[in-house]
């Protein structure tokens, strides 16, 4: 293997003099004071190789030795990853010793000694391609597939496969013979370079299936779909993290991968603490069982921040190839972009807008492009739904990360300072936010079949009312309560009903936090009925009194368990008011 010696150090950018071939993106280890520091090649200039070190370079001296490993940054994929807490380089954080993260400490991502109950799915003589299913193991009730090596080219024939039984991840479970007659031994572990998309599927259609999140402002107003993409920009304090956590708790997905990328450590701790206690509303099992956390918090090495989102995406692709529905959340993609900026700056590249690297847009687009709904070679479907948050500098959405993300993500959930200040949570702006999927005929067809064909027209009706309500609120502000006709107040308060009853949701209330689709349908119908009714009021004060009472009743309904006595009681009172 190629070796190198350190010739320069500026923070975590190190230059090495090398004695042999290196590849772009190759990993090397630099030895200093007994520690081995992992680094990645980012630029080659003749014999001088620039690497970014994933750790602190404190004390590193010229002349220190480096050893290249011959491959790019890879992850190990196999059974045993669910409910694990990894860092951005896939080190198992729980296996690390001590309270503090020691430099140069790397741990195994998979457990070599665990036994897995294996069932073969392929038989001798079968022809298989890369990522075809050979067998199955069960982890946390999830059926995981053991697949033909992802790197394999062309087809291969199954020469042998082990019978059902208990095996470890390193045990050979099948032998394949490729087109050239070479034998390939297959165990349960796959390795894949994180920067390369995994594309061993048949095709990627437009996504169409609603992904239920239990958050009304998303499901009802701006739905996301299985295999869809969305992003949540918002200034600090507008509830990005609360919204993301709500989605990751409640979404109807088989696997949830959370990449905590350059954010607060306590937010990750919240997941560690709460998820093992919480129950997945769809399966009744512990939430942690379907969750993987990739934590590169803001105080962890900056260079590993970029790696963390790619590590998470690669894991998501691995599960998608098994025909599972994966939800991937990255909080926040802005921190990743900033990590790129720091390095680009140290390399003295010519800067793009706001000193970000010029290829930022392309990187963001390629990353979002890895999500999607796919059909596998065997006809099964799998999906990666990707939701990223963006932390726009100064809350200004005209900045490179937001603008570049807006070009590629199909759902836009704009968190707004003004709504947050008024404690109207989730602070998703109902006017500016959108879901392109509402316009997909495939989606309309799916909703028509699975809920009802009135759903989308009703949603669009309410959206128009929100817009009209906003316009009228501005007029009332200018002209005064008395300066506008009473009907204007009715229109305004109809939009307030929609806001208070559908859009606002208390993430910390046991009942209100999650609204199943059936319940959302009932609320949508109720609010539509309230809004479509014609009212006749004498004064604007009557309008306000009437609607405030109505809002109060509907909110009490939202706080009551679905179809409970209490719920029916409030619902009856609403209906009485409507029929009075």
């Amino acid at each position, binding site marked *: 293997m190629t070796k190198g010696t350190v010739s320069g150090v500026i923070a975590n950018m190190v230059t090495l003099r090398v004695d042999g071939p290196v590849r772009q993106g190759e990993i090397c280890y630099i030895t200093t004071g007994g520690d081995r520091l992992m680094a990645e090649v980012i630029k080659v200039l003749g014999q001088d190789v620039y690497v970014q070190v994933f750790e602190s370079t404190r004390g590193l001296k010229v002349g220190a030795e480096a050893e290249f490993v011959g491959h790019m940054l890879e992850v190990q994929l196999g059974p045993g990853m669910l409910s694990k807490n990894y860092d951005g380089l896939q080190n198992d954080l729980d296996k690390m010793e001590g309270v503090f993260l020691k430099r140069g400490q790397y741990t195994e991502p998979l457990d070599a000694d665990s036994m897995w109950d294996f069932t073969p799915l392929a038989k001798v003589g079968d022809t298989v391609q890369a990522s075809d299913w050979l067998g199955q193991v069960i982890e946390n009730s999830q059926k995981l597939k053991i697949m033909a090596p992802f790197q394999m080219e062309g087809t291969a024939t199954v020469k042998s496969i082990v019978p059902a039984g208990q095996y470890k991840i390193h045990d050979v479970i099948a032998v394949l013979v490729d087109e050239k007659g070479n034998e390939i031994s297959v165990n349960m572990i796959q390795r894949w370079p994180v920067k390369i998309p995994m594309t061993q599927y048949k095709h990627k259609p437009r996504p169409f299936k609603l992904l239920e999140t239990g958050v009304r402002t998303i499901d009802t107003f701006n739905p996301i779909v299985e295999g869809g993409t969305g992003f949540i920009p918002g200034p600090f304090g507008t509830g990005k993290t609360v919204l993301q956590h709500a989605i990751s708790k409640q979404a109807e997905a088989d696997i949830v991968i959370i990449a905590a990328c350059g954010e607060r450590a306590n937010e990750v701790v919240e997941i560690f603490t709460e998820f093992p206690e919480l129950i997945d509303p769809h399966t009744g099992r512990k939430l942690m069982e379907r969750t993987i956390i990739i934590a590169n918090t803001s105080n*962890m090495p900056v260079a590993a921040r970029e790696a963390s989102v790619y590590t998470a995406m690669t894991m998501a692709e691995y599960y998608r190839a098994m025909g599972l529905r994966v939800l991937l959340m990255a909080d926040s993609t802005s921190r990743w972009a900033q990590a790129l900026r720091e390095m680009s700056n140290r390399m003295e590249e010519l800067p793009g807008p706001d000193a970000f690297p010029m290829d930022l847009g392309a990187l963001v687009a390629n990353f979002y492009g890895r999500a999607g709904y796919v059909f596998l070679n065997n006809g099964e479907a799998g999906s990666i739904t990707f939701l990223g948050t963006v932390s726009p500098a100064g809350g200004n959405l005209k900045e490179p990360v937001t603008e570049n993300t807006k070009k590629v993500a199909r759902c836009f959930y704009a968190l707004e300072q003004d709504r947050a200040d008024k404690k109207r949570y989730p602070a998703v702006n109902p006017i500016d936010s959108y879901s392109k999927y509402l316009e997909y005929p495939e989606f309309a067809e799916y909703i028509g079949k699975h809920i009802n064909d009135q759903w989308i027209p009703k949603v669009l009706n309410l959206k128009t009312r929100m817009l009209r309500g906003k316009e009228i609120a501005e007029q009332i502000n200018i002209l005064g309560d008395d300066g506008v006709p009473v009907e204007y107040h009715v229109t305004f308060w109809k939009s307030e009903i929609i806001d208070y009853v559908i859009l606002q949701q208390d993430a910390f209330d046991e009942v209100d936090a999650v609204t199943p689709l059936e319940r959302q349908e009932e609320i949508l119908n109720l609010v539509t009925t309230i809004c479509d009714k014609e009212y006749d009021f004498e004064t604007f004060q009557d309008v306000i009194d009437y609607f405030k009472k109505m809002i109060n009743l509907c909110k009490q309904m939202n706080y009551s368990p679905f179809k409970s006595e209490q719920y029916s009681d409030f619902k009856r009172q609403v209906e009485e008011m409507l029929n009075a």
Partner: protein
Amino acid sequence: MATAFQKVYTTISQITKATCSLKARGVGYDELATINGKLAQVVKIMGDEVTLQVFEGTAGIPTDAEVIFLGKSPSLKVSEQLAGRFFNAYGNPIDGGPEIEGREVEIGGPSVNPVRRKQPSELIATGIAGIDLNNTLVSGQKIPFFADPDQPFNEVMAMVAMRAKADKIILGGMGMTNDDYYFFRNTFSNAGALDRIISFINTTEDPAVERLLIPDMALTAAEYFAVEKHETVLVLLTDMTSYADSLSIVSNRMDQIPSKDSMPGSLYSDLAKIYEKAAQFPESAGGGSITIIAVTTLSGGDITHAVPDNTGYITEGQLYLRRDSDVGKVVVDPFRSLSRLKQLVAGKKTRKDHSQVMNAAIRLYADAANAKTKLENGFDLTDYDDRCLDFAKDYASRILAIDVNLNTDEMLDVTWELFRKYFKLEEVNIKKEFTDIYWK
């Protein structure tokens, strides 16, 4: 300072305002050196050319200055002896007392493994309703005051520090005026609290670049008491904007491309490294916590400036002070202030109605603000508007003002009393289970 084995270099090839370069071998990154006795740190190594950042500036350094490498990064001696003492940015006593004896620890050490942290869950009571009721503080939290330079943030911070039950209070003063330094000193000693206070001070009279060491010094001391002595430690950092200003000076002199507001592109990571030292340690590690309350001064209330903006994304909330013109008192602004960790204690360590009462009161206070705008624009007010305005006055003077000192139950009771005085049941929008108990 030189010992027999240290090599002395005497040829400096380049001098800028903040840095010196020379040819040297065997030098480690981040290592300290002295240049004619002035402390400097290695910031760049290219082959045998080493660039040093001189903390107090390069004025007066000749090209034949004596350069000695110390073979270590900046460090602090830690022991119980730190308590009650005042230090400069290098960790040397400035109170005339003896040198500290203890174990030498490199500052800016590694981060806590996130899986070894505990979720913060202990309420830090301050008696100020704008904090305890609306923006409850939790041990292990990091939160700044966003304040204009003319606001009494140091006074409020000192009050919070004195009322909070902490084993140790560590003050990191960056670019602090001499007057403020004496204010803190007097406040602490008048309260008889000097023995649990440790201060690292860089005043406006000291070199600006030196203050880059202050937060790491303060937090190294904090980690000693929290991790090794399992104490509850409160760290006060004022003012983080001066810290960031020093960062931009250094990056500018190192020819880095500035990003927003002339700040270095790494500002977010630089600030996060400091604030993320706040932590609650688990019982299995013996407990202990570090809570950080900081000050970020704003320019004309502009929170979109890079420093407050990046800070807001890192810290767990932020507190704003505001003068309420109706009652003429300083209040903690209920609209813009936020404690992200409050739900970990609100309704759990405090009374169950806490969250709902808090939200309802703020909503009504917001309605009062709208009514006030209407009034100023010359519109007629409704009866509801009038009641909101009256409520807001009472709420500001009896709850929000920072000179009010109540426990949380009392705060809740007073708020319920105000609700009943001014509003109808359906106007407060609170869950029935609470109105059944408290709406009497």
